[in-house]
């Protein structure tokens, strides 16, 4: 009797702790800020929110924000889905490493991506120069940037990896028996994919698409840098109100509209997710085909796709690297290590505690801490969503995703303000930044784990329990190994979010706490564009290395010895 009570209490605590954390660190500061947008002299007012909708310019911005996000998500799916297939279907050298690296684009500061895109896809970029040289053209054949095309392309660069990772995590666990039975029944390859495989992959695909959509919906520097004059998103307006004009009322009203739209979208997606998820048999091994041996037409198409999409991902990054080893001198381009010696120097460390290299350590520390905290918060909530049936579960699911859909400028302002007053007087600094990053990152853990958990056959756990395992043992020995890929993907995204985050970090940072993206920004502001490219190249290398290590380490940590491959 007592034992059962203690167990129930323990379970309640496991669920209540992360929720209390969210209420205190996220909802409370955010609502404090939001009330500025709906309260005037102690009375509720819709003046500011109504004012936004009454202004034709704002209406245009809201519509455009949604339009570009939708197009970007579509392109990200078109690129991301085939990559998930390639990773699932084929075997090739360095596959595991490459899979770890797919996430790298996701962490790059938008300013670096913008520069890479300009250098590679620009009217005077490497790609156009190459094509002009090859075909003897006078003008640039590809005019991609400074239009909607540029925005959509750069968003695909960022978000296709999300789709690939989310879909692949599911595909790899999909029991091939489903497809085999369809094949035995005479279904052709294409029909098999559309009628059997794709429906089973829909939860992962939709998770990826939903995350991508929200990201593009909140995008701001990419839109300004690669879209240009006629493109503006809600986030740009929020920045203007909070940072340039310091007018919190209209800023808060815009942020409320933005998060309401993101949440509305999330809710719709969660409704659909519930409809499409079905219990499936999972497997540990799907057979793969070597990509390099025995050339077939199908593999030719795969190679073509790898080549073209490779340009999209590698071109901009390679251009940034090239920029970091060249320099203009007396009108000529010369190769140099000048920029690297510039960022590897340590002479400023004593003065401001922020030598450029120190930022590497800062970024990794913050990233790992945020990853840990986000997993601790996200996993129990994912469990609640996947395992418990209660009224308003979908609404609950939507609300816990709110931090994904909130403006990072508004969140930075909200946290800074809340952390200066009781009851949350944390001030600025390391802890404040870790908390902010975890808040932004935990939804990834939830979204990566929930579909996998829901797809698990509940019978497995029940079987274990009927054999005498406790609930915790069942989780550790049955569920955890089966969801480890999903959890790992979520944790890695959490790490990535922390590495790339800028707005909240700027607001909450203290001297000596510069992160890599902040240093890239500083170098650019100080006219050291080559130095910024060198730092960006270092960021690419360091994060790539970190992802490979985390993934390997994580496989071992979650995999245990029980289920050796």
């Amino acid at each position: 009797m007592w034992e059962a009570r203690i167990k129930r209490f323990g379970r309640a605590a496991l669920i209540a702790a992360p929720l209390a954390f969210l209420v205190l660190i996220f909802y409370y500061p955010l609502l404090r800020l939001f009330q500025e947008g709906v309260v005037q002299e102690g009375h509720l007012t819709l003046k500011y929110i109504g004012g936004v909708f009454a202004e034709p310019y704002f209406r245009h911005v809201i519509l455009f924000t949604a339009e570009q996000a939708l197009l970007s998500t579509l392109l990200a799916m078109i690129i991301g889905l085939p990559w998930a297939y390639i990773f699932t279907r084929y075997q090739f050298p360095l596959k595991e490493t490459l899979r770890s690296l797919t996430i790298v684009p996701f962490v790059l500061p938008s300013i670096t991506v913008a520069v890479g895109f300009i250098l590679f896809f620009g009217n005077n970029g490497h790609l156009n120069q190459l094509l002009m040289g090859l075909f003897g053209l006078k003008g640039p054949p590809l005019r991609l940037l400074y239009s909607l095309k540029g925005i959509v392309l750069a968003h695909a660069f960022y978000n296709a990896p999300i789709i690939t990772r989310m879909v692949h995590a599911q595909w790899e666990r999909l029991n091939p028996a489903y497809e085999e039975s369809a094949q035995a029944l005479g279904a052709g390859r294409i029909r098999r994919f559309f009628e059997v495989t794709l429906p089973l992959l829909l939860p992962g695909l939709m998770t990826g698409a939903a995350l991508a959509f929200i990201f593009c919906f909140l995008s701001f520097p990419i839109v300004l840098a690669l879209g240009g004059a006629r493109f503006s998103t809600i986030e740009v307006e929020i920045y203007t109100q909070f940072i340039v004009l310091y007018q919190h009322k209209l800023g808060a009203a815009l942020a409320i509209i933005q998060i309401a739209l993101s949440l509305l979208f999330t809710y719709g997606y969660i409704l659909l997710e519930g409809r499409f998820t079905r219990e499936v048999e999972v497997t540990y091994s799907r057979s793969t085909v070597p990509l390099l041996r025995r050339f077939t037409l199908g593999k030719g198409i795969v190679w073509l796709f790898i080549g073209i999409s490779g340009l999209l991902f590698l071109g901009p990054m390679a251009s940034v690297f090239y920029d970091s080893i060249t320099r203009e001198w007396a009108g000529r381009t010369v190769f140099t290590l000048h920029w690297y010696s510039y960022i590897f120097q340590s002479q400023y460390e004593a003065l401001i505690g922020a030598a450029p290299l120190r930022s590497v350590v800062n970024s990794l520390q913050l990233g790992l801490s945020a990853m840990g905290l986000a997993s601790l918060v996200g996993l129990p909530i994912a469990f609640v969503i996947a395992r418990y049936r209660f009224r308003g579960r979908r609404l609950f699911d939507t609300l816990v995703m709110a931090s994904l859909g909130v403006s990072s400028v508004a969140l930075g302002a909200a946290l800074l303000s809340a952390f200066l007053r009781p009851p949350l007087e944390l001030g600025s600094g390391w802890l404040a930044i870790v908390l902010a990053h975890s808040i932004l990152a935990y939804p990834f853990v939830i979204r990566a784990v929930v579909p996998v958990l829901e797809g698990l056959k509940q019978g497995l756990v029940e079987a274990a329990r009927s054999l005498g395992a406790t609930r915790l043992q069942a989780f550790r020995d049955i569920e955890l190994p089966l969801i480890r890929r999903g959890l790992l993907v979520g944790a890695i995204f959490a790490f990535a979010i922390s590495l790339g985050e800028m707005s909240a970090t700027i607001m909450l940072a203290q001297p000596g706490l510069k992160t890599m993206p902040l240093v890239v920004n500083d170098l650019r502001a100080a006219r050291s564009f080559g130095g910024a490219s060198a730092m960006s190249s270092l960021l690419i290398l360091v994060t790539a290395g970190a992802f490979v290590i985390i993934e390997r380490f994580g496989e071992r940590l979650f995999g245990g010895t029980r289920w050796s491959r």
Partner: protein
Amino acid sequence: MQKRSLLLILIALMVIGVIGVGTEKLVVYTYSSFASWGAAPFIEEAFEKKHDVDVQFVATGDARMMLTKLLTEQEAGRPGADVFIGVGSVDLSMARGEGLFVPLTGEDIPNLTSVREDLLIDPTNSLIPYEHSYITLVYDSQVLAVEDIPLTFEQLLDPKYKKMLILEDPRTSSVGLAFLLWTIHQYGDPGYLDYWRKLLPNVLTITQGWSAAYDLFLAREAPIVVSFSTDTAYSVIEEGSTRYKIMLLNSQGYRSIYLMGIVKGTKQQGLCKELLDFVLSSEVQEMISTTEWMFPANRETLLPVLFYQNAVFPPDPVMIPAERIGGNLDRWLLEWAGVIVGG
């Protein structure tokens, strides 16, 4: 075993970042380029030698981000800084409106008497200038010959400059805001909107900030960019090139003045005043030109020869007074955005 050692490495990594705390601190908020690569390291070292104090520059973002941070902290009654360096003249109305800074006199800051008088734009003197510059157009002389460049705002509308212009967004960039204000100064309100409508076909893109715009310019995406009249000095001294030249529309340049002040509520007003005075001393002012690539505020400062020869002083600098900006800025930005997006 391996698992444990990896965990230990993780924990060690997290523990490394312990920050030491000094004795008496003087916290200065400023923008990142000033703190990292500008005059700040020199100021800190020299000032700490003279006084028994630990000067700490905090600069996690650009000037506006830092000002927002300070304003938010002040609202909570806990300003984090004693001194702020880097309020742009375009943001003056926002900074002063909040009553954030301590009014100063010539007695407080002896070096103020050597400052060019046309830079003293704050009547209460709570924000005093330390450097200034002119926003102008910069062009690539290998693409546009000298005889081809526009000399007036009207000539800039010529279709031969189609998609040749890179601008900064006035909503996010103070350089972009300066250019917008310049067109308002030239064409009046609401005449500027019509000018922008006509200008749009010649604009390649409008970027978030100055560095993004200048990066595009250096990548040769377009030959004209809104930037500073000191850029020529930079490219001669740092890049050995006279390729990039200044283009003065109507012989004008939009004056941009950068100010500093003592934050209300500081317990160390005396030291703060000494610090501001030190920033205005010729010792520090001489560094401004080639670290900040701006003109020093102190008129007695000697400029390096190459800087003096190559930086451009527009004959007819213009500026809209802060009082006028304050009451109109939000409307101007909204109307401007309406033209840009709708046009």
